[in-house]
């Protein structure tokens, strides 16, 4: 089995390569087809002397053939981890931007993910255990949460908690004047590591609303799935057997949850990819300076290398996460063999 799982991981890891390639190709083509290009985005559409235009094109590498551009970027990204330099802030390496911005997105994603799992598992579990009207209300919650539109819901939270109640800030990641030493790039973690309590408080206050937005919206899918799976397991004879053997109810619930968990882990893996997408919307709504706002800005200014770099990075990440999820299966479910 050990060899089996090693082989499986290797094959799955190799599968990430074509996935990333396909995504890169699609994005590359779409960018070149879309109306507008970096030059007009940078200089505007005013009359520009042709020689200056040509010089800029040459400088940005846009004078080369598309085939050369395609392979040149791919080669550098794959073998030198060089995602090129930004076209808007000229000369700034994309990788540098990813390094500072990705931890912020990851932080937001992790908080959102945790909230969605806790909320989803709790509501789903209660729905499956209690049944009746409680079950019904939990299911209505899940449908509403699932269909909420992130920017709208984010605005509502900003309105209620930021403006009416005035409890929490509505945008940004830190209060003005607060500094946190950079270690991982995740503010709450860094503040905790350095014992910077004012920094921690400020970072937490800023992350509550965006992560709550993300968490609640994504919890709906968990509620439904947990409810369905736990209800199914609870109807199994071995659960009755546990009860008839006098195993305390909390343990019975725990065993039921354990048996219902495989599809839930699948969803977690899938949701993580959706979370990254949801982070784009959330970040825009809350002016969170992460990968989402970066990508949106890059698309607005047709910053080809920045968009390509972000997409390659994200697709690689999603591939990696689904690989991890598949391995976790094997660990939590002894019935799965490779």
């Amino acid at each position, binding site marked *: 089995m050990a060899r089996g799982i090693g082989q499986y991981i290797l094959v799955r890891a190799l599968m990430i390569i074509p996935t990333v390639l396909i995504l890169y190709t699609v994005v590359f083509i779409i960018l070149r087809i879309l109306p507008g290009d970096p030059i007009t985005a940078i200089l505007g559409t005013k009359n520009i002397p042709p020689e200056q235009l040509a010089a800029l094109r040459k400088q940005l590498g846009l004078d080369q053939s598309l085939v050369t551009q395609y392979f040149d970027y791919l080669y550098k990204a794959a073998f030198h981890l060089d995602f090129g330099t930004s076209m808007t802030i000229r000369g700034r390496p994309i990788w540098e931007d990813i390094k500072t911005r990705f931890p912020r997105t990851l932080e937001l994603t992790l908080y959102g993910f945790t909230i969605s799992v806790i909320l989803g598992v709790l509501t789903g579990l209660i729905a499956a255990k209690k049944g009746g009207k409680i079950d019904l209300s939990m299911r209505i919650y899940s449908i509403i949460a699932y269909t909420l539109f992130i920017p709208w819901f984010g605005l509502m939270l900003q309105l209620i908690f930021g403006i009416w109640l005035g409890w929490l800030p509505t945008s940004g990641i830190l209060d003005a004047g607060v500094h946190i030493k950079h270690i991982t790039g995740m503010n709450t973690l860094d503040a905790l590591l350095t014992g910077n309590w004012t920094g921690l408080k400020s970072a937490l206050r800023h992350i509550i609303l965006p992560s709550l937005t993300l968490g609640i919206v994504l919890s709906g899918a968990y509620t439904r799935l947990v409810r369905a799976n736990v209800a199914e397991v609870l109807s199994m*004879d*071995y659960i*009755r*057997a546990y009860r008839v*053997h*006098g195993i305390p109810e909390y343990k019975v619930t725990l065993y039921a949850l354990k048996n219902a968990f495989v599809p839930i882990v699948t969803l977690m893996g899938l949701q993580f990819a959706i979370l990254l997408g949801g982070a784009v919307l959330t970040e825009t709504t809350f002016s969170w300076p992460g990968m989402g706002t970066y990508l949106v800005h890059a698309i607005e200014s047709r910053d080809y290398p920045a968009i390509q770099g972000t997409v390659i990075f994200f697709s690689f990440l999603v591939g990696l996460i689904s690989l991890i999820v598949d391995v976790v299966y094997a660990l939590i479910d*002894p*019935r799965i063999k490779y």
Partner: protein
Amino acid sequence: MPLLEVVDLKKYFPVEGGVIDRLLGRVKGYVKAVDGVSFTVDRGETLALIGESGCGKTTTGKLVLRLLEPTSGKVIFDGVDITRLKGEDLRRLRRRMQMIFQDPFANLDPRMPVGDQIAEPLVEHGIMEWEEAREEAYKMLERVGLTPVEDFYDRLPLNLSGGQRQRVVIARAMALKPDFVVADEAVSMIDVSMRASIVKLLLRFKEEFNQAMIFITHDISVGRLVADRIAVMYLGKIVEIGGTEQVINNPAHPYTQALLAAVPTIEEKKLKMKLEIKGEVADPKNVPPGCRFHPRCPLATDICMKKEPEMIEVENGHFVACHHHI
């Protein structure tokens, strides 16, 4: 005093309508799964509950163990009405009453080694510590014939056959040395070749612990083999109850007659009448008025459509609910 006394036990399941009905708490009707069942089981006695699928025999078994909440009625176990018990008191009593479920592929936790599944109840009831409980589980596995035990203890249920799983289930139930066991179709899903040995295993434990047992089955010939007394159920009610030989040799209810007539035998049947029943089991949502068996009964007359028959004693300890008992 009998160990178990069931008095006028009822279980009605509400039939739920759509979302709106559920929000308003409206109920469309009831499935009368168990509709006034009374019987007793003594220590050391086996009562077979026999009937077609859907007659309420499994529901009765679950009600008796409080796996379901009864709509009304009493279940008196060793002098205590267990329908009133709650929480810890109920949990402590569980040790004395066990159930063996039908489906060997659904009654073991797929994620726990079978040995630990036997040991856990012993620990949870505070009978022994884990180490001792594991040794006990070892002994139980040996007793149910899963040897060499070291090969079986750490296996997950998916690596066992149906018969082996059912042996584990029996070991788990019997490890607690219960006074009372409900065996719900314990062998109906086992290979025919294994059935006899599993039944024998159950009966060996029953003798050893002098247990009271309810043996639920749709197969009257298996019931005959194991039971001291037989109760025949139809649509949520007991229609005939008596000693095994009384019921088998001298069936008084037309339904029992029909069940017996359906058993294939080598010798010629010694039944007084050869009755055949028509149609399907009625819908328990719409129980027929009067005698609930009358739409299918070859002997039915006007009175059967109007009046529900009372239990009548036809011979010592042999009761039947029929206006035209044979």
